[in-house]
């Protein structure tokens, strides 16, 4: 039963990244899963409001790696989001995946890509650290500790 579970999962993954130039391997290949995550922080907001998560992702492998999602016990839901300007308006949209080219760096920074963190647990407050598991296609989930900063982004 367990064996069969991987097929729908792989399908779902393939469907989630339409047109992406990524050959997702069926099994984790640690050699190509060398994403270094730095400057990981969360902007705390009060009143149960969604928070933004930021980081810098460096792909030290030889193939493009795609970040396809994230999860955390500190939040009810985590989405990949991007802020953009469209028709003179500022807006943000969910993104299915973010590709990090071999040797390249992608920054999740204010005004651009961010983790949209919804339904924070009470323990998520300025000064704390929260563990968020990043999902890269074809790789084992990668846990990362994010430092929680205050609303102004001060450490």
């Amino acid at each position, binding site marked *: 039963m367990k064996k069969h579970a991987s097929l729908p999962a792989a399908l779902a993954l393939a469907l989630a990244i339409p047109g992406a130039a990524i050959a997702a391997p069926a099994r984790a290949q640690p050699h190509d899963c060398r994403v270094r995550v730095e400057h990981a922080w969360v902007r705390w907001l009060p*009143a149960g409001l969604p928070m933004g998560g930021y980081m810098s992702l460096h792909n030290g492998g030889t193939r493009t790696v795609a970040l396809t999602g994230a999860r955390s016990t500190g939040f009810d839901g985590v989405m990949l989001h991007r802020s953009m300007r469209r028709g003179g*308006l*500022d807006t*943000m949209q969910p993104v299915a995946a973010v590709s990090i080219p071999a040797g390249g760096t992608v920054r999740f920074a204010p*005004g651009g890509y961010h983790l949209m963190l919804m339904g924070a647990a009470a323990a998520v407050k300025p000064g704390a650290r929260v563990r968020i598991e990043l999902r890269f296609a074809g790789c084992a989930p990668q846990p990362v500790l994010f430092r929680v900063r205050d*609303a*102004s982004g001060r450490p």
Partner: protein
Amino acid sequence: MRRTLLLFLLALLAACSHAPSPWQLTDVRGHLPDLRFHLTDDRGRPVTGASFRGKTVLLYFGYTHCPDVCPTTLAHLTVALQNLGPLAREVRVLFLSVDPGRDTPAVLHAYVRAFGPYIVGLTGTPAEIARVAKRYRVAYSYGKPNAEGNYEVSHSAAIFIFDARGRARLLADQQSTVAQLTHDLHLLVSRQRP
């Protein structure tokens, strides 16, 4: 004759635009309406534009379920206010919600307090908010709610700056640097001091 007048006006305009401006942000004096509205503040009290006469006012349209662009802008403004030192007391940042469905005074209160003093949250009925937005030609729209009922709001991120008499003076946006904001606010506030 007409042509001469036109040339004269053009020359005058060119001369004006070459005069050094003391402002680093966009000077909108005489081009935008005075600060005027009827809304509710984050303590649930009715307020109008006149409630803020005597203060230099920064008006920003946003919403609290906006964890990226809005807090980044408010954080910028907070640093600029800190740079002003005691002069910051003469300034108010008005964070006007374009999402009154979710932004109750209580939510707004918690939100603005998280950034510091001198920031006031404003909300109102959809019609009251639309009236202010129209006055400053600010656009906003709502996305489709997802399964959980959450929706995104698109909005223009301009920051309108008014002097202590409620006259529109400067226009900034999220690209404006803290240095530019600090410079112009310092100039504007110190000119109004008796």
